[in-house]
Every structure is written in structure tokens, then in C-alpha cells.
């Protein structure tokens, strides 16, 4: 294991120790350790197929939905092992939310999309509180002004960028502690992308945020820490400014300067 990875910090929100993921016989993650804290947005970068999504999905146990996937190692949330039998997956996913590469609003109204999580987790005892949660989430996702007059319209009728912000609103409606984003802007145009990046800035500090991206500039703009993945291992993890200006590893330098990937 690389010594620059696992510096245990008391304020780390999530930490992974020697995590391995297998798809059947094939090993996709080969021992990754990382700490994620509340103050910094963490970006995962690396060439396609290196395991960024796979590792991200271990953090809210979404790999459980893939029958052939198997996870080894320890991952803790506030010191509690999320793979222990006492951990309730439903609770875990309420605390660790996820935004996907392709906007995936449910075929329901905008209101019902945002209210989905609060309803299944029983967060709002009455309609007034649910309305409040929906409004707050949409405001925080920067979508409120655009949709406040048409909350009953279908979520799928929004533009791609609006859909993605709706998905973020949906994720923050259950008041999670961590938000995982897997290439949230890769299906969006530059203007919609700028809006999401701005949003990430605003959400920082309130939630621990991990974002996977293929776009170096984006990683540089939105994150304070960056992890570079390559072939199932985490090659380097450090302050974003260091990674981009002064990487310690040859492979990181090659990737950042566009020599491969």
C-alpha cells in the first residue's frame, strides 16, 4: 500500500481500508484506502475502466445490486463499518446519496421526484413539512425558481441539466451526510455543467462530496482533494493543487499532461 494514502484523520467522514472488489473472478479494485472528510470535495480521476465507478459504488453499497460483485476490506461511515451485518442498507443509502452519470428522474412529477426519498424514509409527518422539504431541496439545488410554478409537471419533461439538478435535489431531500456523484456532467452542455459546478461549491461543507470526472479542468475547479486511479489501484491522493501542478507519481503526471488515457 502506498504511504501517501491512508492518513487517518479524526474528522474523516468515511474511510476505506484496503478495499478490494471482484466481479466474479475478475478483480476490479486492488486494495484502495482513502479518507473522505466534510470540508473538502474529493475528485476521482483516471482512465476509463480503472475502477472509479466501482469504488464509488462501494461507498453506499450499490454494488450489492450486482449479483456477481464481491467487496472485501473495511469501509466506515462515522467509524461504523457499513458492511457489518448491523448496518441497514436502507439507512446507509439515506445517509450516503448518489447522483448518476445520466440524469435519471423517475417518471413522476417534479414534486414527487423530490418527495420520493422523504416519503419512503418517513421524514415528513405531514403535507406542510413535505412541501417545505421539497422547496428547500429545490432551492438548494438551484432549481426552485425554474420549476416552482410547475411542480406537478413530469420530471422527465425537464432539460438534461435541469433533470440532473432535480436528481441532486432528490438526493439532498433525505438530508444525507455524503453525496457521491458519478460523472454528473458528462451528459450536459457547458452552461448546465457550470451550474452544477457552482452548485457543488455551494453544497461543500454541508455534505461530504465525492465526484468522479473525466474532465481535468472540472476536477481542478470543484475539488480540494483529488485521487488518481489506475488499473484498479489508487496511485496518488492529495490536495488538488499538488496533484495538478506537482504530482509525485510518474503515472499521474502522464495522465494529467494527456500522455495517455
Amino acid at each position, binding site marked *: 500500500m502506498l504511504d501517501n494514502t491512508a492518513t487517518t484523520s479524526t474528522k474523516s467522514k468515511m474511510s476505506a481500508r484496503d478495499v478490494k472488489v471482484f466481479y466474479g473472478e475478475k478483480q476490479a479494485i486492488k486494495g484502495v484506502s482513502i479518507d473522505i472528510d466534510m470540508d473538502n470535495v474529493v475528485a476521482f480521476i483516471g482512465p476509463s475502466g480503472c475502477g472509479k465507478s466501482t469504488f464509488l459504488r462501494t461507498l453506499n453499497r450499490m454494488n450489492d445490486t450486482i449479483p456477481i460483485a464481491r467487496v472485501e476490506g473495511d469501509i466506515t461511515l462515522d467509524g461504523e463499518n457499513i458492511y457489518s451485518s448491523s448496518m441497514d442498507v436502507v439507512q446507509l443509502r439515506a445517509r450516503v446519496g448518489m447522483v448518476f452519470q445520466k440524469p435519471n428522474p423517475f417518471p413522476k412529477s417534479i414534486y414527487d421526484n423530490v418527495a420520493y426519498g422523504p416519503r*419512503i424514509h418517513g421524514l415528513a409527518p405531514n403535507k406542510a413539512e413535505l412541501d417545505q422539504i421539497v422547496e428547500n431541496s429545490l432551492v438548494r439545488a438551484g432549481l426552485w425558481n425554474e420549476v416552482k410554478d410547475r411542480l406537478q409537471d413530469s420530471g422527465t419533461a425537464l432539460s438534461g441539466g435541469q433533470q440532473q439538478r432535480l436528481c441532486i435535489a432528490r438526493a439532498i431531500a433525505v438530508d444525507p451526510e455524503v453525496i457521491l456523484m458519478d460523472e454528473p456532467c458528462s451528459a450536459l452542455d457547458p452552461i448546465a455543467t457550470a451550474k452544477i459546478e457552482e452548485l457543488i461549491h455551494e453544497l461543500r461543507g454541508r455534505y461530504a462530496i465525492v465526484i468522479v470526472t473525466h474532465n481535468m479542468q472540472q476536477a481542478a475547479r470543484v475539488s480540494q482533494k483529488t485521487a488518481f486511479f489506475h488499473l484498479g489501484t489508487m496511485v496518488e491522493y492529495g490536495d488538488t493543487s499538488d496533484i495538478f501542478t506537482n504530482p509525485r507519481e510518474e503515472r499521474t503526471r502522464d495522465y494529467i499532461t494527456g500522455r495517455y488515457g
Partner: protein
Amino acid sequence: MTTTAIFFLIAGLGLITWVFARARAGRFIQSGVASVHSLPSYHGWYAAMWAVVPAVLFLLVWSTVAPALGSYQVLESPLAAQLPTDAFERAAILSEARALSRNPDLKVFNDAAVQLAPLYSAADSRYAMIGALAAFLLCFAGGAFAFTRIRPDFRARTQVERTVMLGLLLASLIAILATLGIVASLIFETVRFFNLVSPFEFLFGLQWNPSDKIVDGQATGFGAVPLFWGTVFIGAIIAMLVAIPLGLMSAVYLTQYASANVRKWMKPILEILAGVPTVVYGYFAALTVAPALRSFAVSIGITDASSESALAAGLVMGVMIIPFVSSMADDSIAAVPGSMRDGSLAMGATKSETIKQVLIPAALPGVVGGVLLAVSRAIGETMIVVMAAGLAANLTANPFASVTTVTTQIVQLLTGDTDFNSPMTLAAFALGLTLFVVTLLLNIVALQIVKKYREAYD
């Protein structure tokens, strides 16, 4: 020479043409001509087609024309002049004579026929000979024509492709033409029926008691509403109450819960269920389910329960439709993007919450389309209701009572000794047309919904 023999001979000639044409084209390649357009076998097919197709087409046409020509020749003869002038009698004698000429052992009633039979034999064999000769001539002419066109730059492949395309087009046209013909005959007979019974009476009348005697100014007993009701009650209500929940649940289980292994043996079993002949379901409904339901009904105090209850036919029909609904629902659920399911699971929803609140609503249009198709199939289904539903045209919502359906009544009206022109026979056509129109509309709407839905997700 029989017609079959002629066909075989022409086929044989076609084969020979194929071999020769192919060999001739093959020589171009051997002799090293620079650009031979088509493979030798295409030249072979081209020539064989020219040898066979015109000859066979001619034979087909000739076989319909030749008997008429034969009759004409017989009528010209002096013997025929002595025939009775009554058209009906004449026709009877002539057809007897023709039958006798083909089968000399036949018993005949008219002596005149015995005298005319040899004339028929002579005329028929003469025209058969002419036909055969002409067919062979066409065969040789076609083959020779094609043979002379074989050149290195001749585009035999294009020609063969075009002919294949024409053949396929013809085949598909036949199905369409057959459908049109069926519809036309339905419409024609229905119009005749509506000359006797008003469409209003037929579509809205509450009395179904068909009889051949139509008395002016009285209800005719051709009010089909009880039939429509019975059809809807059995096919669209009772059967769907069984098929929709069970079909949907089995689809959800198969797509979301079943392991690959379970799916591997459960899907084929469901498909086998779809392949069981409906007459077997009919047996099951009439001999097993209906009596059981009746004794159950009596045991809970329903005294007027019929042994041909709507419930028995509907339940069994529902079971028959399950695989259909299930496979349509299966397809629709599988078409919902996986990202939507992941989105719900990532919110902390359980599997069943995800299915109930995201997957099924998302798949709903497809499921609705599938259900409409299932309904159209159920209301057109005949065998189960003929065997298990009654004939009494009751207008009742009691599932233990007997009702009758459109298809049952069509069978009822057309079986037995009825005159083809009687109102009862014609009523069957009117019922058939109604059924056809309704199922057609259901199918169009259903396919439209399914298509829209498919577009939405890709």
C-alpha cells in the same frame, strides 16, 4: 399425361437449363474474360426461372380455362342440341356427364349424360394436350431466350434478386388480399343482414332470441347487447381479473427476483402454457372447473347457480391469458432503463418499493398496451366459451349465472341446417364483423401505446 407429370417435366427441364446455363457462364470465367458480372450460379437461376415460371403460370391459367373450353366444344356437338332447354336440368346433365367422363364407374341418373361423357373425354384430353404442348413450348422458348442473354457483362444477379423480391412481395400480398377478402365478405353479408334487421336494433336491442321469421313491427330477437355484455363480462372482466394480477406478478418475479436458474425453467413452462390448445382449456373449464364452482356456489347458498357459469369460462380464460400478459409485462419492465431502478435503490428504497413506485409506473404504458392486446385476444377466444359458457343470453352481472358470448352465438348460428340466406346465418356475419372491428380497434390502440412507450426510452 396428367398435370402433375407436366409440372415435374417442366421442373426437370428447369433443372437442365440451370445446369447448362451455369456451365456456359462458368466457361467465361475459365476463359479469363476480365469482368464477369455475376457468379455462374446466378446465370443458372436466371435461365431456370425463364424456363419454369412462364410455363407454370401458363399451366395455372390454362387449368382454369380448359374445362370451360371443353364444355363449349361439347355444347357445339349435334348430340347436345337434343338437351332439354331448362337451364337447371341442362346444367345437371352436363355436370353428370363430365363427372362420368372422369370416373366411368359412376352411377348416373340421366341417360343423356352417358352419351355425352365420351364427348367430354375427347374434349378434355384435346385441351390438355394443347395446354401441355404450349407449356413445353413456353418452357423451351423461355430457356432459350435466357440462354442467349448469358454474356460476361450480363447482370444475372440483379435480375435474380429482382425476381426473388417480386416473389416475396407476391407472397405478402396474398396474406393482405386474403384479409381484405374476408373483410369484404363480412361487410357484404352484414349489409344484407341490416336490410332485414335495423343496425340500431342489432346494436342496442336487449332481446337475443334469433329466429328466421321476421314479423314487421315487432322486435326481431336480434338485439345483441346480451351477447356483447357476456363477451365483456367473461373476456374483459373476469378473465382480466385473473390474468392481470397473476401475469404482472409473475413478470415482476421473473424479471426482478428470480435467479437466472429459476428463470431458465420457469419461462419455458409459462410459454408451454401459452401453447396448450384452447380446446384443452375448454375441457378443463367445462368438466372440472364449472361443476366445482357450481357445487361451491350451492354450498354457500346460491341456489340458481348454473353449471355453465360465466365464472368458470372467465377463470379458465384468465389462466390461458396469463402467459400472454406476463410476457408483455416482462418486456415492458425489462425496457425500463436500469438507471431508474438504480436511482431508486440509491435513495434507500427497498426492492419492493422500487418495483411498486418506480418500475411498474414506468412500465405502465407498455403493460396497458399488453393488457389491451390480451383483452382483444380474450373476447375473440371461442373454444373455451363454446364448451363452458352457456347459450342463454342473460343480461346479468351474477358470475354464477350463465351468459353467452358473441363467438359462442356465431358458432351456434352457423352450425346445423340453416339456409345460407336466412337472417340467422346473416346475423353470424354481423356479429363477426362487430367482433372484428372491436378487436381491430383494440389492437391499433394497444400497438400505438406500446410504440410510444418504446420510443420514450430509447
